[in-house]
């Protein structure tokens, strides 16, 4: 395949960025999208131009390190991570525009690399169950109904990639926060801190500059792990309950 790539280049957080156009030949449909960028980078390096910086690590769809807006869609046209997207999803002669996540709380560090540390700070604000090592009772001390355990698992599969934020016109991280609140709230172990957790996580979310949810649903559509939109309903329900309880 032969492709025209329009790629966002930006030297650092303070610099102005702009789209650069590159031609790439001999792209195999069996390449992953990131391997296609590897090939471009080899070509740029050989030509004396600095390679394009982009994040990736596990390249098997689970670490959440990769990102990219591909033709305006977070992680591109398939419901998967960019690292699991393959070039057979594109056609010979295509022009592909590649940009970093766009959201004020995710500032661009260089080219396609953004700073997602806001997500870590949201987890710090309450995305955990407080149990010191060694203080745990036997694992069978508290049975958990299978349907609760399964729902907790489904929400816990969030990989923290930030696609939900990048896809949302408001730059909201409600899906991310809702997934964590639902994961821990489904479990008996998570009840003691349930009110505090939701109040503090939402406050941190707002403090970081993420926008509010207006039920557009782009987040759930873009989520490579298919976290459902109803976690945001759960988030709002938990928040209302916490307020009723005096928080």
């Amino acid at each position: 395949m032969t492709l025209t790539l329009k790629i966002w280049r930006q030297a650092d957080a303070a610099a102005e960025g702009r789209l650069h156009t590159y031609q790439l030949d001999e792209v195999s449909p069996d390449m992953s999208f990131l391997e296609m960028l590897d090939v471009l980078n080899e070509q740029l390096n050989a030509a004396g131009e600095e390679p394009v910086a982009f994040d990736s690590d596990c390249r098997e769809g689970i670490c959440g390190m990769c990102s990219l807006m591909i033709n305006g869609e977070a992680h591109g046209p398939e419901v998967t991570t960019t690292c699991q997207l393959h070039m057979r999803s594109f056609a010979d002669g295509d022009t592909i525009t590649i940009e970093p996540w766009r959201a004020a709380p995710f500032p661009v560090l260089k080219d396609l690399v953004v700073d997602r540390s806001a997500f870590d700070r949201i987890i710090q604000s309450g995305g955990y169950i407080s149990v010191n090592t060694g203080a745990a009772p036997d694992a069978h001390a508290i049975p958990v109904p299978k349907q609760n355990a399964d729902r907790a698992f489904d929400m816990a599969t969030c990989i923290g990639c930030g696609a939900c934020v990048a896809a949302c016109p408001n730059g909201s991280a409600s899906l991310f926060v809702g997934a964590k609140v639902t994961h821990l709230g489904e479990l008996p172990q998570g009840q003691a801190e349930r009110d505090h957790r939701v109040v503090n996580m939402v406050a941190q979310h707002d403090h970081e500059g993420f926008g509010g949810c207006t039920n557009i649903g782009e987040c759930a559509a873009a989520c490579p792990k298919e976290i459902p939109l109803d976690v945001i309903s759960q988030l709002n329900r938990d928040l209302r309950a916490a307020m009723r309880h005096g928080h």
Partner: protein
Amino acid sequence: MTDMPDTTTTGNPSHDAPGDVVDDAAGYYREGDPIADTKSPDDQPVERRWSERKFSARMANPAKRRTLSVIVVGTGLAGASAAATLGEAGYQVKTFCYQDSPRRAHSIAAQGGINAAKNYKGDGDSVYRLFYDTVKGGDYRSRESNSYRLAEVSVNIIDQAVAQGVPFAREYGGLLDNRSFGGVQVSRTFYARGQTGQQLLIGAYQALERQVAAGTVETFTRHEMLELVVVDDGSGPRTRGIITRDLVTGAIDTHIADAVVLATGGYGNVYYLSTNAMGSNVTASWRAHRKGAFFGNPCYTQIHPTCIPVSGTHQSKLTLMSESLRNDGRIWVPKDPADVTRDPRDIAEEDRDYYLERIYPSFGNLVPRDIASRQAKNMCDEGRGVGPEVEGVRRGVYLDFADAIARLGRPAIEAKYGNLFDMYTRITAEDPYQTPMRVYPAIHYTMGGLWVDYDLQSNLPGLFVAGEANFSDQGANRLGASALMQGLADGYFVLPNTIRDYLADGPFDTVPDDHPAVVEARASVQERIDHFLTVNGTRSVDSYHRELGNIMWEYCGMERSAEGLRKAIDLIRSLRDDFWRNVKVLGDSESLNQSLEKAGRVADFFELGELMCIDALHRRESCGGHFRAESQTEDGEALRHDDTFAFVSAWEFGGESGARELGTPVLHKEDLVYTAIEMKQRSYK
């Protein structure tokens, strides 16, 4: 997959007579003094040792703990759990990871599960049985005390994870489900669908972030450790800190603490293509090795037989397919090399070679990982491999589900393997319900690592090593579902109990910025960076890495021979020499520069790769995951030599001679003594 089904015979049936042992590595190494673990109370029976050590290890009271500081490098299962637990205890902790968040460490990619001797199924499991399976799985090359302790604390890990909210699979009664994994005879594997590593890591990550909020832990993301600071002010060496590079700003910083923990994972990426993450590297361990830390058993690598094959020269990593697939899939290649390009569905039954079923009639497709891997390579080397031809060879064998689908029906196969089949389809665009999967072995895990004693302390005082980065618990091979267990055992339960003995002597004197050890370490970091940015060569870092990986895979992979290993050492030396003179790294050091990061990692892989080959050359026995051509039975099976090789090879860095020439490494042997288990030879025919 069991690495050791229970059909062993005692004794060592046919090996070279004593005196026949050839030192293949003569001239490549020097032998130094033996080394021994002095921390395990070996005068006690094996089941008493950990209790005894926890009691004898000295304590620091809570007020004193606040004055003691620990650096943890790496935030995977071992690092995050250690940092969280040390923070809870009140120490001042700093963590470092090269990723943008601690949650991304490669522990997250582990699929299968985590073993624990809970015996919730009442099927006869026990701590002793898990210990026994672990030692046997490691082909009698792990340290008995460490392996026992691993099995002992496994039960606490599950309790801890459940309390944190890790959503393990449950039964309808609300209790935890277990599955049999790795063919062992009990069901002791806890799992969270195919994402157990992810769920356990998120649990540890959340515990870590909770300590960040509590103010006991400070996290440094997108930071890479590039040098270890070892101070010797006359009373012997002490590890006192690290030099890091901020990968965003390029700033070189010195971090000083009372102790340093490396939890930096394995070094499988020395092979370039592996199931590791792109950034997984050996640099932290290797810089520590160059500062004096011994490297244990570097040649012990695990190869996983069922990964998705390479599709072309652009390939950047390999994806593992759970080997549970071998329970129902049948492995074959065409009998006739002329058939390798035909549609497999058109190849008649009598023209197929189900080679594992043919060679190993009792175990068939369920032979251990190393045997399945080696035979796949043999078939491809014979020209009977299938799939795309890459660099002149077709590297793939069929894993065929047609019989299973006919027997059980497609819905049953979907229920069992649906997510794996989907993943395969996404990567290859082939439908394994219709046409056989293609699989090929890949590097998956490294059992070798920095040498540690029972306290997980290296021979450098104050340097501790946890998880895959150390060498101690797994031996020459690893059971399925035991990597997660070791990472969390070390981090939650072992290290926090042993490091306090060392820290009881602290806090140590401050180390000023102008201390010669700091100045030297910083200068070494800066010198390498400056070199890479000024070589102005012609070849990219990746191209060198790929070539190094090819050498390692060809000569230091599944099957090794003295001739091949000597050739590999020569090839690595000349390629490394070329790398230093001809690598091309653009950009600068004051900003995010991924080529520069990779250059440093590949430089260290070159040195590690040479040591791996020397270690493999020296160990003239077939053992665990690796096969030495010179050490096999009459019918071509692996032959271990307990009389000559029942020891850990702990390698000391040989120094540098001249311009980037490596000196001769020094071998220190730690004898392996089994008091609770009898050594046996395996058989699968």
